[in-house]
Every structure is written in structure tokens, then in C-alpha cells.
């Protein structure tokens, strides 16, 4: 019984931490740019693919094993550096200030394009990079064994969340971003370069998506179609937590992660729709999510 609860909690936490990194980028981009980015899932997949390509190259160069984490970071960074100018500068900028739903549709179109770009670059075969997963050995909890790498993901998620929170609330550039979130027009009048802030925010969002992809790559087989589920799962997280809220993404990811882990162990039939169920329930009872403050109505 205790073992079972521990399993559910640990599985849930590992799943939640992965989900949190994806959702953090999504919710941050929504907070700053007011864009609910469906293509976020596509960037995640690109991160996974680029890691699956770079890590074998890294090993073939005979680099020390411990530095493989560096290769994964570089691959995530590379994806963000390539994708941000194309998406934000090239396409999304044309739609700022337009209807939110229209922009969702534009990101859906970009998502479709990214799906095929993956196929064109990496083909239809599955790629495997399980080596980094063996790096940190295994840990023992009573009668349970957990791979150290999986648990390290929890640490990574906590680090990402705290880091973004710290930058936003404790540094000057962060406060500028908060000002832009609050009112882009007034911030612009005060001399803030809004386009730069948008670009930077999108870059951070894209990097987080790619980072989640990179660090998940060792756990899964990287193949066509890994992005499609991520989209709705991360949507569910940010909807539960409230769009644009970082603490909300933490709670949302934990709720979805734990609910899913509990379902996998106790009620496998419900595994697929439990998260949609959570999302629908939250929307019905608290449509603005857990951490969304009251907003004035404009007449």
C-alpha cells in the first residue's frame, strides 16, 4: 500500500516535471504575447529530434560522458535560435493585436508545417538515445528502483520554474517584461522596446519547449507524432493553472501528473481522458483557472 502510493507520487512527480517544463514555456509566451501557441508541441518535438541527432555525434567525438548534458542543452538552444526568428519575426508578428482565436489558428498552421519538417529532416524511423539515462545510475526507495536521470528531471523542472520566477520578479529586465505584460502600449510609451521583449519572451518559451524535448528524448523513442499529444496535455496544464501564471503551471502540472499516474496504476482505462476531464472540470467551475485574478470589463 505504502509502496503503491509512493510509486504513484514518484511517477506523477516525474511526469509532472516534464509537463511543467513544456507548460512553463507555453504559459509564459501566452502571458507576454497573448498567443496560445499550438506549435509549442512542434518545437518540443524538434528539441527531442535534435538531441537524438546531436548526442550520438557527441559520443562519436569521444567527449567525456558527463558532458552529454551540455550537448542536450546545446541542441535545445539551437532549436530555439533557429525557430524563434522564423516564427516570431517572420509570421506571428503580423498578427499581434488581432483576435486570439485567429492567432491560435495561425499557430495550428505552423504546427502542421513543423510536423512535416520533422519528417523531411529525420525521416519516418524512430530514433533512440538512451545513453544519457544511464548516466546517473539508479536509486532505491524501499523495494522500488528509480532511474536517477528520471528523478533529476524533477530537479530540472524546479530549477526552470524558480529561475524564470526569479528573473521576472527580481531583475530589472524581468520587471520590464512584467510591465509589458500589464500594458504593452504604456510600456512602449515609456521607452521599452516591445518588439525586443516579445522576441526574447518567445525565445525563452521556445527554448523551454525544446529543453523539455531534449531531456525527454532519452526516455522515449523519438518518432513521428510525439508532438500531437503534448499540445493538448500542456494546454490542459495552463488552463487548469490559469493562462499566463507560473504558479498555476506548477499546480496544473502536478494535478495532471498525479491524476495520470494514479490512473495508470489504478484505472488504466481512464488514462487517456483523465487530463481532458480535469481540464473540462476546471473550466466549468473556475474558467479563468486557479491563479487568474479578477479583470475589469471594458465597456
Amino acid at each position, binding site marked *: 500500500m505504502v509502496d503503491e502510493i509512493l510509486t504513484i507520487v514518484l511517477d506523477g512527480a516525474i511526469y509532472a516535471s516534464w509537463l511543467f517544463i513544456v507548460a512553463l514555456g507555453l504559459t509564459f509566451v501566452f502571458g507576454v504575447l497573448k498567443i496560445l501557441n499550438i506549435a509549442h508541441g512542434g518545437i518540443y518535438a524538434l528539441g527531442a529530434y535534435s538531441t537524438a541527432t546531436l548526442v550520438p555525434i557527441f559520443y562519436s567525438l569521444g567527449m567525456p560522458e558527463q558532458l552529454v548534458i551540455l550537448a542536450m542543452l546545446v541542441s535545445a538552444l539551437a532549436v530555439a535560435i533557429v525557430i524563434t526568428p522564423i516564427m516570431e519575426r517572420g509570421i506571428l508578428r503580423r498578427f499581434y493585436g488581432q483576435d486570439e482565436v485567429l492567432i491560435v489558428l495561425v499557430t495550428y498552421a505552423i504546427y502542421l*508545417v513543423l510536423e*512535416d519538417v520533422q519528417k523531411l529532416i529525420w525521416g519516418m524511423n524512430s530514433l533512440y538515445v538512451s545513453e544519457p539515462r544511464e548516466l546517473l545510475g539508479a536509486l532505491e526507495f524501499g523495494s522500488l528502483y528509480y532511474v536517477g536521470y528520471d528523478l533529476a528531471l524533477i530537479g530540472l523542472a524546479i530549477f526552470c520554474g524558480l529561475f524564470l520566477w526569479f528573473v521576472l520578479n527580481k531583475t530589472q529586465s524581468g520587471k520590464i517584461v512584467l510591465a509589458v505584460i500589464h500594458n504593452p502600449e504604456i510600456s512602449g510609451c515609456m521607452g521599452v522596446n516591445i518588439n525586443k521583449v516579445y522576441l526574447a519572451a518567445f525565445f525563452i518559451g521556445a527554448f523551454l519547449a525544446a529543453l523539455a524535448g531534449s531531456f525527454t528524448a532519452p526516455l522515449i523513442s523519438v518518432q513521428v507524432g510525439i508532438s500531437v499529444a503534448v499540445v493538448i496535455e500542456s494546454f490542459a496544464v495552463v488552463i487548469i493553472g490559469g493562462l499566463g501564471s507560473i504558479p498555476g503551471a506548477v499546480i496544473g502540472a502536478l494535478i495532471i501528473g498525479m491524476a495520470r499516474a494514479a490512473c495508470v496504476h489504478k484505472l488504466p482505462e481512464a488514462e*487517456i*481522458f483523465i487530463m481532458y476531464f480535469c481540464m473540462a472540470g476546471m473550466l466549468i467551475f473556475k474558467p479563468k483557472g486557479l491563479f487568474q485574478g479578477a479583470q475589469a470589463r471594458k465597456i
Partner: protein
Amino acid sequence: MSEKLYNNLLFQSIFLMSFLILVGLLIPNWLVFVITKAIAYGLVGLGIITLMRGGLVSFGQGFVFGIGGYTAGLLGTQAGLTDAMLLLFVSFLFTGLVGLIIAPLLARYRDIFFAMLSLAFSMVLYGILIKIDAIGGSDGFVLPESTYFGIKPSSEYADYVLYVVAIIMTGFISILLRYYYDSTPGLIALAVRENELRVEYLGSSAFNVAVLNFTIAAGLGGMGGALNGIALGHIDPEFTYWTTSGEFVFISILAGYLSVPAVFLAALLLELVRSFSGRYFPDTWQLILGLFLILSIIFIPSGIGSFFKQFFDRLKKSK
């Protein structure tokens, strides 16, 4: 009646319908099939247009599309009901009823929250459908061949007969919708789109408008799902998946909310792009579809319907 006959909506529509039915005899079978599918998608798009007139966009029309499809499919396989017209009509009514039941829940929300809640509904349905093995789970199931007034057409004409039925039923629904759009409740929807609060102060209910429009959209989506299922001869949970819903939103954005025929034109464009790129570029059809979406949103942001409207306005002025 002071209006000339060719200005009459009913006359125009019947003319267009007869024209399309005749054209159906001349064009190859695959195109007949593509147009039938476009009509199915167009019906769902028409539902979203109805919502859009009230300022709402549903990102989960796969929900009603799936319910309509499964209603037709289950009536066909379980109850032995194979008459296509009856199936379409029953799916329309049943899905409309489902829409009426959940509409009060959805009608409280606006903008992205409306879109997300409708998306959540469709994904819950998806999650349930792929787990019910009795109706095929994720593989779905095959529909029995349809009949028309008790007669089963030979296989070479089956597509054409369905095409004719689809055109006639959709044609009359479109006429009714045009009348609804121009009626008082239909025009209140446009006012809600402009400024909901003022409409409320003037004594109309934005909530009721949303409920009514969602119910209509649900019925249309259900009929579209049934038609798509009958045309394909197969139904699976993919009907309710979010990517399917995304295509419906695209159709309605491409068409704009001004014109009814524009919706079917947009749906046909989507189907043609899909079938051509699927045939000639099987590995990159999503890429082409995505680029097509982006370009059409950039270049015709207010939809094909705005061209139609400009054209007819100019026609009226020149007289």
C-alpha cells in the same frame, strides 16, 4: 413582389443546386466524392460561422462532428437503419439536442475560454471513444451501405446519389440559415459580436443568443459528421480529435462570417488542397496545408465571403 425573379434568394439557390447536380454527372467520380466531403466539412464550418456571428469560435466542433458520425454509424449497424436521408436528419436532430443540453454550460464563456472548453469536451469524447471496444475503439467501424427510399444504388452511382442528396439537403439548410441570419435574433448576434454589454443594456440576452447559435452549430456539425461518415463508409475517433476541429476553424476563418456559399467554397478549397497534395506529395501534405493556411490568413484576413459581399454590393450600385 417587386423584386425580380433573379434577385430572389430561393430562385438563386435552386438554380445553383440544379447546376451543381448536373455538373455532378459530368465530373469524374473522385471529384464527386471530394465535393461531398467538402459539403460535410462545410456544414460544420457553417455551424462555426453561426457562432462567429455572435463573436464565438469553437475549437472543438469535432465533438459534434463525432457525435453526428457515431449516431449515423450506430443507427446503421445496430438498428439497421440505412436510409441516408433519414440518417442525416436524425443525426442533425440528435446532435442539435446534445448541443442544446451542453450549450448553457458553454454559453457563459467567451473568446479563448469558449474555444478551450469546447476543445476539452471534444477531447473527453475522444478519450472515451477510443476506449469503448464494443464500437471498434481506436479503429472505429464500417458503416453499412446506404439506401435511398429503400433502394440501394449500384456501386458506380452510390457516390453520385449521396452527392445529390447532400446538395439538396444542404441547399435548403443554407437558405433557412440565410433567413435566420437576417432575422431579428440573427441580427442581435451581430450586435453581440460588436458589444455584448450594450446589447444586454438594451434588453436582449447575449446568453440566449449564444445558446441558440451553439444549438444550431451542433445540429449542423452533427449532420456534417453523419454525411462524412456515410461518404467514407467508415467512422473512427479521429472525427473528434483536435486536429480535425482545427480544420473546421480554418474553413470558417477562410470563409469569413459574411457569406454562406463562401463556407462551402472554403471547404472545397481545403479538400482540394488536401487531396492534391496527398496524391502528389504524400509525405508533405501537412506542410502544404499549413502554408496554405498561413498565406490565406495573411492575404485574405476577413475571408472569401468579403469578396462576395464586395462583388454583390458593387453589382447593386451599378444598377
